[in-house]
């Protein structure tokens, strides 16, 4: 028996490997470094590995390969762009995560118990969050470049499992946080089962789990269509769940609200990039020839998602839930990019994902700042008058909201324009019109928050804005600068994306 050593192309996989290494070092640090020094060391390691990975991604940006890791992954332009976006979002988020006030000091302790109180008083901080984040990032990096169903599934789980845990680590309102974790986990597992089942059918149809093989089978057109369609449908359900498309969205408001805010921000932004990355690859490269079967379904889902997200967001009273519904609506907008199924759609989606991700982290960063004595205040009514007390914080939040609403001169506008024009180009006029109309509805609730912050007088209670730590400040500032820059001068990024945004099979 001849044993070929696998050709792994380490340099191409390096970003993922670096992150994984960082994560493992993090685990070791938990074991060997003293409590007092852990936070700084962990942060340095996490940040270092993220930056290193980012540098590596940029270094290999012009390479492409279909054979890395024995064909389990594809290294191509879009994949690297997604990785770039994920890493940048992660870097920004890590500053936010480093602001430890948000996390419970002892995840194992009962909420409200003496044990918990002691841990908090002794200044114990939760540093496990860093390796967890890095593991999730590793999964996310793998997700959009996976090129067979096994890798895709493994990546899905690698990115999900740490997030399930991280969702339960909030310092305040711990019961809610744990509930969020439970819901996220159960529903996530449920949807993974769908995904896996769909994957089985795709395998059954094509006789192979590799994307290239499935594509070849599809082009050959010999297999059983019902099996193919069931496969596509169930795999899609798994992915649509991750991006929060209606009717697979139900977890997101609850989880967004319950999870620690920095995690919500990270999850909302990075997961979306990763999941859409995988979805775009799957549907653009593998299943494009079956578009007549799946596009109608996607159109319906996109339309429902945009309208539902926008409508329900209007009546939200909690800022995190409101942002959750907003992210559902944005999932709908992003789905139009999948529907577009053309190069413009791919470029637009990448741009949109990046712009949206950055703004999201920034917005959640601001949410962490608004507090009263018992912690974060996400009740919108108590945000009233924020503009008077902390004009800069409120203005920054307003700016992010305007970006979400797609007002010109913010990054959101360029993204929306690009993605809608791509969808229109592909003939999905109805989706574009619904998208435009639901943008109006969406604008309504963003504006409502702005009104609340700027034009409504504060209630008597003591909601205040904490002076942001340098790290949080960094998060918000970087997000803000990127959001403005992408709104006014989107060209550099667009030009960067353009030559790279070509999938290879």
């Amino acid at each position, binding site marked *: 028996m001849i044993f070929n050593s696998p050709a792994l192309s380490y340099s191409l996989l390096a970003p993922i490997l670096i992150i994984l290494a960082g994560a493992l070092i993090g685990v070791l640090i938990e074991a060997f470094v003293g409590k007092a020094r852990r936070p700084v060391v962990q942060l340095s390691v996490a940040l270092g590995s993220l930056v290193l990975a980012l540098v590596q991604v940029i270094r290999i940006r012009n390479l492409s390969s279909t054979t890395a890791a024995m064909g389990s992954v594809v290294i191509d332009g879009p994949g690297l762009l997604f990785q770039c976006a994920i890493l940048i979002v992660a870097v920004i988020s890590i500053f936010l995560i480093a602001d430890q006030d948000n996390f419970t000091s002892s*995840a*194992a302790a*009962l*909420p409200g118990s003496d044990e918990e109180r002691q841990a908090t008083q002794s200044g114990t901080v939760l540093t496990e969050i860093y390796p967890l984040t890095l593991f999730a990032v590793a999964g996310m990096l793998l997700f959009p470049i996976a090129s067979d*169903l*096994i890798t895709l*599934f*493994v990546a899905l*789980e690698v990115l999900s*499992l740490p997030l*399930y*845990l991280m969702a*339960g680590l909030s310092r305040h309102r*711990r*019961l*809610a946080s*744990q*509930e*969020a*974790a*439970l*819901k996220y*986990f*159960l529903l996530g*597992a*449920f949807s*993974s*089962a*769908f995904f*896996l*089942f769909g*994957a*089985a*059918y795709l*395998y*059954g149809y094509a*006789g*192979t*789990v590799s994307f290239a093989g499935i594509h070849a089978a599809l082009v050959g057109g010999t297999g059983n269509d019902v099996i193919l369609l069931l496969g596509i449908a169930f795999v899609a359900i798994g992915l649509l769940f991750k991006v929060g498309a209606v009717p697979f969205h139900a977890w997101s*408001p*609850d989880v967004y*609200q*319950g999870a620690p805010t920095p995690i919500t921000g990270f999850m909302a932004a990075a997961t979306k990039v990763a999941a859409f990355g995988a979805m775009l690859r799957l549907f653009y490269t593998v299943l494009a020839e079956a578009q007549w079967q799946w596009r109608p379904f996607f159109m319906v889902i996109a339309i429902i998602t945009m309208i539902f997200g926008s409508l329900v967001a209007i009546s939200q009273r909690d800022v995190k*839930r409101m942002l959750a519904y907003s992210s559902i609506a944005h999932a709908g907008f992003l789905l139009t990019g999948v529907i577009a199924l053309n190069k413009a759609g791919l470029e637009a989606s990448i741009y949109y994902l990046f712009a949206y991700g950055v703004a999201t982290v920034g917005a959640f960063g601001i949410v962490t700042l608004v507090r009263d004595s018992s912690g974060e205040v996400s009740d919108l009514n108590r945000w009233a008058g924020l503009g008077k007390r902390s004009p800069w914080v409120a203005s920054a939040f307003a700016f992010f909201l305007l970006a979400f609403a797609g007002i010109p001169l913010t990054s959101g506008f360029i993204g929306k324009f690009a993605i809608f024009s791509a969808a229109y180009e592909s003939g999905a006029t109805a989706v574009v019109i619904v998208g435009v109309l639901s943008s109006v509805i969406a604008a309504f609730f963003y504006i409502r928050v702005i009104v609340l912050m700027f034009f409504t007088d504060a209630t008597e209670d003591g909601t205040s804005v904490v002076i942001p730590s340098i790290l949080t400040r960094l998060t918000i500032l970087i997000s803000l600068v990127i959001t403005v820059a992408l709104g006014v001068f989107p060209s550099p990024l667009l030009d960067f994306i353009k030559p790279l945004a070509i999938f290879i099979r």
Partner: protein
Amino acid sequence: MNSANYLYLSALLFTIGAVGVVIRRNAIVVFMCVELMLNAANLSFVTFSRINGNLDGQIVAFFTMVVAACEVVVGLAIIVTIYRSRRSASVDDANLLKR
């Protein structure tokens, strides 16, 4: 025996699992139903592996088992934590976050 029957069985198991997730209240049972669904998928993989005459499906099944095991670790951790805080493993009791 016609291998299509395995597919029907797998579909049936999957459905049972899915319905179980919806109707059962105990978090552990719900989770077991998810495991049932995963295994239904595994059965499909293996069946298709047989039909297609290659081993890919069977490899996937191994992967699935490993992943499922990881899931159990994480899942049980979460469920136990929430059980400790609430003294209840009913998923219906976790109802703070809504609307």
